[in-house]
């Protein structure tokens, strides 16, 4: 098996090689670290690379392997973690000046479970500051480029995590999704990204943006790897009161409870919301997604177009609710206990104001102001309450839809990956431009945000390439806790499409391909 490039191998295949002593964990981790070292300079996926700790962990696993021990379902697998997820002893910045140098004293539960399963943390990835954005251009640390075309954005806010997996810098990565921040960058970078059901994976340790909409989710180069990571992380957590009790835990027999993934999708009822295929969606994107829908039909599914008017109304409700919660969640960054503190102050008000003025980026400030306003006595009824009501309506519409359909299929993003043009992409409205860069960015979430409002699981995967060689992603959504249906449909599609695991050729030599 040695001739197969690691980047194209699944977790299962790598694990078999470990057991058969084809290569050691240290070799694999070193390989990944070398690749990061030589190529991340042009991609910019990582804020922190954990060379020493990763190699040390690898050495320990090799020792255990030598003793014939089982090193866990993700033993020896390198994982990149988005920088808004707490990792004990490793700097966690949310790509913000306000948390530069902040080192959490605890691991997020999701990270803890990955480590317990034998995974190795290889680094922390770049993102839009505090997860606010759809292109990773709002990072206060650095720029991340799309590995498929270094002039394009990788999507956001989990751009670094998506790019890391796409470029072969890690086998898995963790992203977070509040309005689409796993699914959209996954589709821009041609990888698989899962936003699980709300509550399926604990939020403890996820630095909060919008509490009722935030999710941690895995990203990978193939469906099975993504499912393996999900299985390890999911389940009730006493530290998170919003985590769900009724998440099925791993099968006692040890076999993956997603083994029925390979069963096929005969009779699966697939709904195609017509609102997703209008003028707002790029033609190439719409065509590719609809072609995949046809493929599902060919594989035995019952595919049907129907009306689901949740997307447009969902977007504005999402913006109001997420900004409101963010304005409260980000109040703790006041310069008193940790993180950045301004040097220029005479009293407590100036300390706090100066810290936040100097520490937060423009987009973060904008959302805090918006959120503060919609929660104020002036705005509460008119905006916040209305948004909550609308959100409930959307939930109902979805519930109805999932009586008739098992899964829904939509584009993950209405547009293809666009050029990195930081200033223009993040600018407010000005004379002459019909919509501001911000508004265009905000609409990136149009097909994904509604699922966050309803807490539904949704998966993004590659379904084709554009004429210019850019990945096109589709989104599959299912009812609460029906991730198994998602994986089943996605796996069948992946097999049929035959494009999984293809990695971008980056500038500079690749050691493994």
């Amino acid at each position, binding site marked *: 098996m040695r001739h197969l490039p690691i980047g194209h191998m699944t977790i299962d295949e790598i694990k078999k090689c470990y057991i058969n002593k084809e290569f050691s964990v240290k070799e694999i981790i070193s390989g990944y670290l070398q690749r990061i070292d030589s190529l991340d300079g042009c991609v910019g996926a990582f804020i922190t690379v954990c060379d020493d700790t990763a190699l040390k962990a690898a050495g320990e696993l090799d020792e255990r392997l030598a003793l014939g021990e089982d090193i866990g379902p993700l033993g020896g697998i390198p994982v990149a973690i988005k920088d808004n997820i707490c990792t004990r002893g490793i700097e966690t910045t*949310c790509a913000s000046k306000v948390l530069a140098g902040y080192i959490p004293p605890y691991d997020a539960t999701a990270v803890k479970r990955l480590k317990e399963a034998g995974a190795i943390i290889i680094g922390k990835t770049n993102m839009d500051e505090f997860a606010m954005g759809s292109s990773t251009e709002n990072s206060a640390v650095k720029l991340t480029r799309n590995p498929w075309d270094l002039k394009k954005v990788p999507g956001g806010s989990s751009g670094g995590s998506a790019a890391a997996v796409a470029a072969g810098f890690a086998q898995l990565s963790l992203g977070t999704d509040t309005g689409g921040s796993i699914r959209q960058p996954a589709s821009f970078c041609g990888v698989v990204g899962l936003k699980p059901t709300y509550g399926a994976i604990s939020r*403890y340790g996820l630095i909060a943006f919008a509490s009722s909409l935030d999710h941690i989710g895995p990203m990978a180069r193939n469906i099975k790897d993504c499912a393996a990571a999900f299985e390890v992380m999911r389940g009730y957590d006493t530290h*998170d009161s919003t985590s769900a009790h009724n998440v099925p835990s791993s099968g006692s027999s040890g076999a993956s409870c997603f083994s029925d993934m390979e069963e096929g999708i005969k009779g699966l009822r697939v709904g195609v919301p017509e609102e997703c295929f209008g003028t707002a969606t790029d033609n190439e994107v719409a065509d590719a997604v609809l072609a995949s829908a046809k493929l599902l039909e060919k594989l035995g599914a019952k595919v049907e177009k129907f009306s689901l008017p949740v997307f447009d109304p969902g977007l504005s409700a999402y913006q109001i609710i997420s900004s409101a919660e963010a304005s409260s969640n980000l109040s703790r960054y006041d310069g008193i*206990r940790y993180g950045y503190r301004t040097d220029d102050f005479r009293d407590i008000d100036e300390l706090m104001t100066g810290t936040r003025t100097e520490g937060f980026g423009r987009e973060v400030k904008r959302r805090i102001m918006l959120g503060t306003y919609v*929660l104020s006595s002036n705005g509460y009824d008119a905006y916040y309450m209305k948004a909550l009501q609308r959100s409930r309506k959307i939930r109902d519409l979805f519930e109805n839809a999932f009586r008739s359909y098992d899964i829904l299929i939509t584009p993950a993003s209405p547009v293809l990956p666009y050029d990195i043009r930081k200033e223009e992409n993040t600018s407010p409205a000005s004379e002459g431009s019909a919509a501001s860069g911000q508004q265009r960015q905000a609409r990136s979430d149009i097909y994904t945000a509604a699922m966050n409002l309803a807490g539904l699981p949704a998966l993004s995967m590659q379904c084709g390439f554009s004429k210019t060689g850019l990945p096109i992603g589709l989104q599959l959504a299912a009812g609460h806790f029906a991730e198994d249906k998602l994986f089943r449909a996605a796996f069948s599609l992946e097999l049929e499409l035959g494009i999984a695991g293809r990695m971008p050729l980056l500038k500079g030599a690749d050691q493994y391909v």
Partner: protein
Amino acid sequence: MIIGLEIHAELNTKSKIFCSCPAEFGAEPNKNTCPVCLGLPGTLPVLNKEAVRLAVKAGLALNCRINASSRFDRKNYFYPDLPKGYQITQYYSPICENGFIDIETAQGAKKIHISRIHMEEDAGKLIHAEDEPATLIDYNRAGIPLIEIVTEPDMNTSDEAAAFLKALKSILEYAGISDCRMEQGSLRCDVNVSVREPGNRKFGTKVEIKNLNSFRDVQKAIEWEQRRQEALLMTGRSGEIIRETRRWDAFKGETLPMRTKEDTDDYRYFPEPDLPLVIVDNELIRSISDELPELPRQKIERFAKDYMLSRYDAGILARSRHLADFFEEVVSFGVQPKEAANWITVELLRLMKNNTDTDGSMAEITINSKDLAELIKMVIEGKISRQAGKEVLSDLAASGRTPGQIIEERGLAQISGEEELNEIIKCVLAENADAVMEYKNGNMKINSFLMGCIMKASKGKANPNKAKELLEKALTYLRLF
């Protein structure tokens, strides 16, 4: 005058309300903290069920309706002692509503209604550094569970307010809900006062008073504020009574306006998304209700009836559950209730007065109930005089010795033996022949003089009653023979 109170009481839980840090008083600064109560990024609150139990218990003890479902909300504002930049509280739907306490007033019993009781978390404590221009923050208190009790504006005098607070403290202490010690900060009280002219149906302007650190502060502040508002009303300056928050300055003995902020706080309350609804079902309510001990009013009734005590004595004994239990223990060792009550309410409390807070908190009763019972019995049996008994009591409080040991060490044993007493009497009579002469001549009052001599001769140890009895016998004998 119309008075309403807003009281915060710290709950007697082992841990904080949203994390498992110890909820203890007096620990080294910032020792009892963790990522959750420090509000570190990524942390989430987890509700302590014990806090819910005690909040429900408080509601039941205060005759409230317990809401089957209630919810937490966020109260958003910036202050260094508030780690998350918001406080988790219950604004829109509290756990208990519509209760009352009966208090005793000069006009008889009066119901003071309680509008609501809700749960919330406490903030940290700011301490001003002594030797540098800096403020230090101790987060041990951040996350301690509080209940906020809001009364209706049913009180009309400072006495009624004080009576309410005493009654509330008594009930909460009894049920083990809170220590309610204002000086320690486990009970805090803000007062809302308004004055209106008699006959005027409209309420006057409400003034809030903060920084009250004892029950006496509460009374004095109310009285002072009443005088201030009345003075303004009577001189036609009612417009100067504005709706504001004033600070009680105990040193100056007056309320002063607090620095007003430019705009009133908009706390932007919204439902806490990190916590589910608080559900309290009937079974839980029943189990908590079963746990409720006999409350003060019931105890006073029972003491008065079963032990035949005056309502006054019963009231004093029942003021603290600690004291009431102590009393019953002493009685259980075979002491007459009336005697036990007397010794406790008079002698013991006098001793403890030095150790109580001004709000009448009981410091530890350092005497063993068994020892006190033994002491009382000794006095009744005449082994020591009552006076000696008081001295022994004081020693008992200070030391760890038994009554018997103390009596022996200090030689307080009373002389009650007839033989011994008669010896003394004989001496005294012999030495005071002229007094005896006067007695024979009909001066009955000479008894007291002779008693004095007997007490002197016995160094105060003679059992006065017994000595009197024997003296009379001796004198009668002398008269007759």
